[in-house]
């Protein structure tokens, strides 16, 4: 694989002021940074962290939704969910490959996920107790992810930006699929309506927390904006998501679990929703590993990895034997 040639390559760059200015000028001119280009160590580190976290989120994200594959209520829903979860796995693979272009290996990233040093999106530490959660995740979680990811299609790092184009197309399909699922429930019988509203009640606040801490508290935003890794701040994206999503809930007759939610004509020039106070204690509790499913998610990933060790070892052993036979035959 192309990217594997870059793993462990010498990436040292002498960061003189002249070099840093030239790098910034290139970013400002909207010229993409590519794997072989010299880049500041902090730029590389930030991207490895971001892309790695993104990849891990896709992989861990397979678990809460995979939870319903064997219980999906119809064959149509079953194949749609299977395909969706498979898409998430595909995004993970795609993103690990993009991260590999920065010199880190998938094995190394996997190890960091399993030993807890790498983070993934906290939203996947919430449980999916009902079928409506599958709709809520597609509609809200993928909806929030799209808000974050569409600007990443213009990210200054070429491989990440290009990966995001395909990922966004698929996420946007998932979002519509999730909304359609919720709409079906909201138009269904009382049990189904209740199931839909209950899922919305549980997923709304965690979804708007997905954009991360408020701009006043975010440690990574400024430099990432300057390097055009990020294009919008956490709060800007959160507002865009809320403004887009509230009318969607109204359209299918669901109520947002926020009594302070109110349209404000004068907000941000064109108007926007005012919303209630976000419970950041809850956010940090889950980020720090104390959500309902944090431990279960990592245990499940670790179990899959450990249980599969003998399969990976056998594949390697077989490949080595064959390599040897081929070279002996030659």
């Amino acid at each position, binding site marked *: 694989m192309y990217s594997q040639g870059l793993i462990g390559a010498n990436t040292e760059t002498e960061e003189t002021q002249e070099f840093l200015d030239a790098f910034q000028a290139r970013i400002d001119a909207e010229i993409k940074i590519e794997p072989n280009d010299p880049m500041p160590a902090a730029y590389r580190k930030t991207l490895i962290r971001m892309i790695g976290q993104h990849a891990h989120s896709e992989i861990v994200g397979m678990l809460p939704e995979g939870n319903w*594959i064997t219980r999906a*209520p119809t*064959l149509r829903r079953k194949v749609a969910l*299977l395909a969706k*979860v498979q898409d998430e796995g595909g995004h993970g693979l795609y993103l690990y490959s993009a991260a590999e272009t920065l010199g880190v290996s998938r094995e190394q990233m996997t190890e960091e996920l399993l030993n807890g040093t790498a983070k993934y999106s906290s939203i996947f530490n919430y449980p999916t107790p009902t079928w409506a959660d599958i709709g809520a995740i597609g509609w809200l979680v993928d909806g929030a992810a799209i808000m974050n990811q569409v600007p990443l299609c213009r990210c200054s790092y070429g491989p990440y930006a290009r990966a995001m184009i395909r990922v966004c197309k698929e996420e946007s399909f998932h979002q519509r699929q999730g909304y359609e699922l919720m709409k079906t429930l909201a138009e269904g019988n009382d049990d*189904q309506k209740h199931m839909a509203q209950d899922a919305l009640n549980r997923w709304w606040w965690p979804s708007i927390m997905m954009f991360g801490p408020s701009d006043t508290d975010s440690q990574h935003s400024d430099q990432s904006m300057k390097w055009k890794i990020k294009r919008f701040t956490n709060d800007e994206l959160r507002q865009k998501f809320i403004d887009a999503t509230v009318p969607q809930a109204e359209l299918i007759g669901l109520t947002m679990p926020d009594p302070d939610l109110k349209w404000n004509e004068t907000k941000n020039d064109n108007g926007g929703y005012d919303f209630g106070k976000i419970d950041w204690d809850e956010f940090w509790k889950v980020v720090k590993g104390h959500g309902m499913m944090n431990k279960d998610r990592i245990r499940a990933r670790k179990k*899959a990895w450990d249980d599969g060790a*003998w399969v*990976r070892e*056998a594949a390697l052993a077989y490949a080595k034997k064959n390599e040897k036979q081929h070279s002996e035959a030659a």
Partner: protein
Amino acid sequence: MPANTEQLIEVVVQIADDHLILGHRLSEWCGHAPMLEEDLSMPNMALDLVGQSRALYSYAAQLESKGHSEDDFAYLRKDREYTNCLLVERPNTDFAHTMLKQFYFAAFMHPFWQGVKNGTDNTLSGIAGKAEKEIGYHIRHAGEWIVRLGDGTDESAERMNDAIEALHPYTGELLEVDEARQSCIVSGAIPEIAPIQTQWNATINNVFTQAKLTVPEIDYPQQGGRAGNHTEDFGFLLTELQYMQRTYPGAQW
């Protein structure tokens, strides 16, 4: 309408049940595979199988003309009314068992679909055209794993042998011809079994030889699925599969 419609429905439902149950079992792996590549390919194969079951259930419903849907067949029958072969309902156990199960099944379905494609039933022949290509890929995928695991490490060889010991007794049922099947062979909708058996043996022998594995002699084959006599694990599979339809009768999803 063919003269042997009842027998044709019976056979179509048997094949549909095989595909649904095997696809369901495979889908249990989603998110828990030994490597990311397998987390993509196992759901892919599960999608093929469940997709084929949908086409087959819809055809059965159409032949039956009682206003049933694919979901009525898939979700709302009682355990004794499912007529899948026992092989496909066996638990996943580990990656060796799972790949071997896929391999045994695909090695049978590939020549079977080829025969159906050239058969007398236009709808089945259309389904077979698509399914044949998909199942050809399943043989390749699972077959390559049988070779890697059989000729990989001591542990993987041991696990493969354990899988063969556990699953080979169930393979005879794939090749069984009951009255309904015989009627469809006579009408030309499905192929004669003897040439399929020859091909199945050849595929298994070829891959097992490469994998340094031995094809066992089975004195007492396991069967009963076609008559609705299932293993104990099957009830639990149905409990999950049918949960939503049973809990919320009549709801639209």
